[in-house]
């Protein structure tokens, strides 16, 4: 893969911040949902959709597409917002998130919205599904150039099923399976190190015969290079994306209490409930690279 030009990086950064704004707007309207993960993964999603994925927003089910499998379905506000900004559906539809009759289910459903590869929410099963897709593809096309990206969380590594899949992928050695781990260090009950320590993660994955790349999950160029390296690897690759939960809103950042709360229903020791939404939007709109008039 080529190196990204500065203006391409700036474009993706701008998209990421637009996605963050849409995430907050949709969560405020929904009145429920997850805040920390979607904000933290906005840069990864923007990098994928605007520079890496082979994907046609006007034909999201085209045969020759890369697959993006979201294992931690609860961060779907960022998937929906990214898809909308990529042109899959109108941005204003994001305001139907979690409402009755919406295509944007609280956790994604394959049949509701074209472009969603699988239904997810119960944690720990996405990597197995991605592996199943890879194995099926390999039967027909051993030299396949389709990539299967599985986005997953660090907390869901608590689930035993993930380790079944990690072991299995280590055995099968598919070259085109690329997992991205959102290493944000939090889960519902607290910090991952307290709830269920995961380290040393890099060594764990490597010992299961995976190629492992550490990347700053907010550095577009670094993420882009990580995807490039993963694509050329002959092993399954785990990109450990080190992210800040709640990224972009300093009052939300690194605070696990924002895992499952929307603005307006989060912890009140820093911001009162009635100011959480507006404060978050104000700060996101002031971020570098955002042209406010583009946000509508």
């Amino acid at each position: 893969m080529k190196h990204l030009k500065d203006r391409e990086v700036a474009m993706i950064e701008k998209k990421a911040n637009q996605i963050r704004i849409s995430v907050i707007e949709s969560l405020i309207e929904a009145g429920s949902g997850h805040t920390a993960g979607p904000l933290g993964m906005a840069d990864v999603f923007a990098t994928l959709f605007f520079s890496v994925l082979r994907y046609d927003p006007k034909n999201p089910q085209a045969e020759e597409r890369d697959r993006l499998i979201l294992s931690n379905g609860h961060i779907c506000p960022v998937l929906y917002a990214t898809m909308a900004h990529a042109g899959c559906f109108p941005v204003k539809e994001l305001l139907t998130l979690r409402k009755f009759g919406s295509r944007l289910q609280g956790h994604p459903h394959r049949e509701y919205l074209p472009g969603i590869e699988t239904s997810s929410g119960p944690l720990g099963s996405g990597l197995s599904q991605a592996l199943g897709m890879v194995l099926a593809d390999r039967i027909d096309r051993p030299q396949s150039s389709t990539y299967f990206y599985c986005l997953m969380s660090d907390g869901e590594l608590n689930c035993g099923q993930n380790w079944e899949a990690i072991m299995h992928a280590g055995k099968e050695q598919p070259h085109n399976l690329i997992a991205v781990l959102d290493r944000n260090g939090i889960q519902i009950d607290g910090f991952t190190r307290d709830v269920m320590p995961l380290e040393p993660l890099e060594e764990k994955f490597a010992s299961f015969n995976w190629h492992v790349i550490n990347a700053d999950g907010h550095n577009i160029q670094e993420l882009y290079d990580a995807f490039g390296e993963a694509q050329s690897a002959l092993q399954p690759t785990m990109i450990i994306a080190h992210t800040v939960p709640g990224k972009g809103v300093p009052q939300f950042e690194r605070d696990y209490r924002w895992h499952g709360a929307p603005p307006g229903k989060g912890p009140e020791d820093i911001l009162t409930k009635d100011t959480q939404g507006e404060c978050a939007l104000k700060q996101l709109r002031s971020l570098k690279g955002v042209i406010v008039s583009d946000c509508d």
Partner: protein
Amino acid sequence: MLEEAIHFHKKVFTTREESAPIREGYGKGLLEAAERDIRVVALCADLTDSTKTSYFKDRFPARFVEMGIGEQSMASVASGMAAMGKVPFFTSYAMFSPGRNWEQIRTTICYNNVNAKVVGSHAGVSVGPDGGTHQALEDIAIMRVIPRMTVLVPCDAEEARKATLAAAEYEGPVYIRLQREATPVMTTDVSPFRIGKAQCFYRGRNPKVTIFACGAMVYTALEAARELEEEKDIGVLVVNVPTIKPLDKEVCRYAEETGRVLTVEEHQRIGGLGSAVAEYLTEQCPMPVYRVGVDDRFGQSGEPGELLEHYQLSKGHIMQMVRTILGVKYVS
């Protein structure tokens, strides 16, 4: 007498009767389905020989996925393969799949609406010496409660072969329940089988009770029916119900022929064939429904025959239940 339309095996109920494990019919059916349809793939969780998935593996190694002992991942890997257009059959003992991986089956297969087939072998107490840990008695209940799931319980190896072929052609999630022990082969390649269809196997003279049965217990019910007629002059209907879900609406007609229903299965009395029949009849043509099955207990080690006797799943118990039902006076 045995229904002619079923084209029973000529040797059934003779001294030269042939037996085969129901799971063997699955192995043959899977191989046949794979020969007909290139999309058919198979997965197994370290039980390839005993579930007879080995027939497929030997013939189509490139289309076989050895999962190791990972039933949860197996269900989801199958889901992923189905999403890419394959028709995956994934197999283990019923206790582990669908026993251990229920949520993966619910979410990644049924909720997700993909075309994957769950195959659970070694169901029922007739597993024998392995004991209660390995005797699935709840699998029908936990599969039939999931929306979109079709549940098949073939009565012999030949019907298992046909059920497997039918599942391969059917678009959507299917659970096939298999049993370990050698079971008399009653049906033949010309016996009718269709998903969703129950078949009357035995029609006694002036029948007084309708017996609905599934799996290997169909043979036991037929034995009971023959003896009741020959020795007690009591006529019954025996209806084979290989599709628990969707249940054939014709069960109403069979039930109304006699007005008294007995269900027979090697499964908990809660949640299986008996529950399915009772639920349907309660709404459509209410009448008393008695259920032979395991009565809210776990299995244990023993020989299949002694376990079936102990858990009141024998021919003698079915006959006793029929006499009890006929002795009860109903207020209509």
